[in-house]
């Protein structure tokens, strides 16, 4: 065959292959939820947490016959796709889920950055998207109408911590802040600085470290030199594990050591052993909460029990928030009585419910209204909630 003809046929064939992938599914009695997840790449760990939680919710919902849509029960299908922690892929997959797979609703992946991307796509198509792990205001200030997040804004956490710690330990006067140069940790560091200053503390150190830092010794040595009473570090699990360990090696300590969000995850405690003791943190949820709710789980206890039985480890706020996001969607569908996207969107905006994860009520920007977020401390290898009073199980202990 002539060379050029072969080439044009090849390119045509290539194109037709792309065209031929998966014709849209026709089943009408199923509610389809698209879930772009980071199953590989830098956020793979976190993506799996969401996946596990979604699966738990799905099982219960379908076991009950599905979601009640205006009198008819419709089963739910979750279409999970790996976007490899790649921003362009996230956008691509969100589009694909909407246009090819014809999903009715979307979930957002872990992290503020990629949530923004997915939300942008959803907004263009008018598809409601449930964000379970995005808490930075900058994600929700774009004027998106179809984005709803179950995590409360970052600012609330640092305010509560500053107020409480200063009250319980009035000798704490100086704080050192070290943040990771990345969407969420940077935001947490900024919020802490603002809250600390409002609480009358002196910020003696305030720097960031780049993504990919293998050694915190220099920054920590400088922190030591400024003799703070409170050391606050933000980052992802591996950064925090490393930092805490190096602090211990270099004999750097302070009465209060706070890390966001390390101690909220089991792997932090496992990786550090006894050195993890005394570290405080704040989270959006703790499994010892005593919420009772009218959702597929019924209570925090129920969720906790099932999770532990299935996964042999404690659930963290990512798991809970992810499941709660889908519960909220379910409730909105039930209330709207239809899966019409615009109507469900309106029902979501008017949400005011109690779930096993806690109360969910969205503010005008789509974020779950700030409420009393748990402050925890690792004591003897276990995560102990200190605040708010309803779930308090221990008191703040100064680190010797």
């Amino acid at each position, binding site marked *: 065959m002539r060379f050029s003809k072969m080439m044009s046929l090849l390119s045509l064939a290539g194109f037709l292959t792309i065209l031929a992938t998966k014709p849209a599914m026709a089943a009408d009695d199923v509610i389809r939820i698209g879930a772009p997840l980071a199953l*590989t790449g*830098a956020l*793979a*760990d976190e993506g*799996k947490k969401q996946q596990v939680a979604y699966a738990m919710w799905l099982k219960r919902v379908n076991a009950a016959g599905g979601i009640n849509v205006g009198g008819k029960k419709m089963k739910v299908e979750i279409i999970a796709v790996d976007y490899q922690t790649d921003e362009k892929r996230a956008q691509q997959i969100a589009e694909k889920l909407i246009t090819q797979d014809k999903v009715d609703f979307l979930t957002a992946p872990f992290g503020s950055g990629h949530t923004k991307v997915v939300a942008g796509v959803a907004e263009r198509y008018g598809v409601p998207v449930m964000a379970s792990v995005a808490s930075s205001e900058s994600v929700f200030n774009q004027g998106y109408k179809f984005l709803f997040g179950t995590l409360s804004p970052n600012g609330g956490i640092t305010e509560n911590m500053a107020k409480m710690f200063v009250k319980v330990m009035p000798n704490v006067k100086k704080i050192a802040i*070290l943040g990771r*140069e990345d969407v969420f940790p940077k935001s947490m560091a900024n919020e802490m600085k603002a809250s600390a200053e409002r609480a009358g503390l002196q910020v003696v150190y305030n*720097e*960031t*470290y*780049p993504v*990919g*830092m*293998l*050694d*915190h*010794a*220099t*920054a920590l*040595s*400088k922190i030591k*030199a400024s003799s703070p009473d409170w050391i606050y570090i933000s980052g992802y*699990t*591996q950064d925090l*594990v*490393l930092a805490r*360990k*190096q602090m*211990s*090696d*270099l*004999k750097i300590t302070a009465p209060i050591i706070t890390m966001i969000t390390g101690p909220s995850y089991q*792997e932090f405690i*496992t*990786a*550090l*052993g*006894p050195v993890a003791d005394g570290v405080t943190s704040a989270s959006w949820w703790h499994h010892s909460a005593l919420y009772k709710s009218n959702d597929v789980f019924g209570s925090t206890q129920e969720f906790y029990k099932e999770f532990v039985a299935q996964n042999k480890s404690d659930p963290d706020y990512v798991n809970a928030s992810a499941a709660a996001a889908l519960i909220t969607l379910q409730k909105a569908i039930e209330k709207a009585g239809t899966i019409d996207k615009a109507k469900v969107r309106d029902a979501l905006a008017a949400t005011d419910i109690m779930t096993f994860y806690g109360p969910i009520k969205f503010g005008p920007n789509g974020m779950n209204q700030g409420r009393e977020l748990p402050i925890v401390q690792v004591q003897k290898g276990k995560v102990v909630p200190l605040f708010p009073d309803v779930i308090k199980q221990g008191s703040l202990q100064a680190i010797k």
Partner: protein
Amino acid sequence: MQAYIQVLTNGLMLGALYACIAVGFSLVWGVLNIINMMHGSLIILGGYLTFFGWFHLKINPLIMLLIVPPFLFLFGYVLQYVMINRVIARPVLATLTLTFGLDMILYNFMNVVFEATPRRITMDFGSFSFYDVVLPGDRLLAMVLAFALTGILYWVMRTSRIGRAIVAVRMDKDAAALMGIPINRVYAVTFAISAMMAGVCGVLMAVTFPVTTNISGLLLGKAFAVCVIGGLGSVPGALVGGLALGLIESLSGNWWGPQNAVLTGSVLMIILLMTRPTGLLGKAGYE
């Protein structure tokens, strides 16, 4: 003053680790003329194997030092003979891309089998103090081991037949061939040694850092920098380069803040590439 000594000490300990990361990479680049993009992942592989040996089988990591590196030696030997040898003569674009492709496969495999959760061996090695300068036990141990093993490698290269053959090939491949040195075997052994040192580094890292596939690219980047600074293909070069990089990062982090520590190292590397690509100890070699 004391603070500066601490900064310097931190830098040296970090540097020893960097040297260990880079020595295998440097050998392969210098002798085989190949930029091995898999190096970072090989280190992580060593780290994961060590961790799982410790976690599931309760084997002390120091014992793993005797198991993991030989395993990686074999792995490297086979890999080189079967795959890399075929592209030895090709230009850097082909070889780099090939090792990049192989790296993707290895990386994916590790993610699927081991998962990306950061893992660390939680053994307490304590901490030592010299007049207020603190030396964490595990880093000290890692540094000592890094020096020791690199030293052994150097000695082996200088005295053993295969070691001297490697050096000969590095200096002049054709002359070495004419002298009867089996080039392909030398290549395979060099690559295997590189993989073995990556394994050693992996064991050491499992003890000092949380190990996760996410940082494999980072480690590779450090290896690049060390090679450029110290010079290619020689063990002393990797040592000097590693220590230099460690010190630079530590000092610049101290002066200009942690966010610029890594940047300084990279900028320095570019400057050296432009002015003295052979590095501090290197001889004019491969371009």
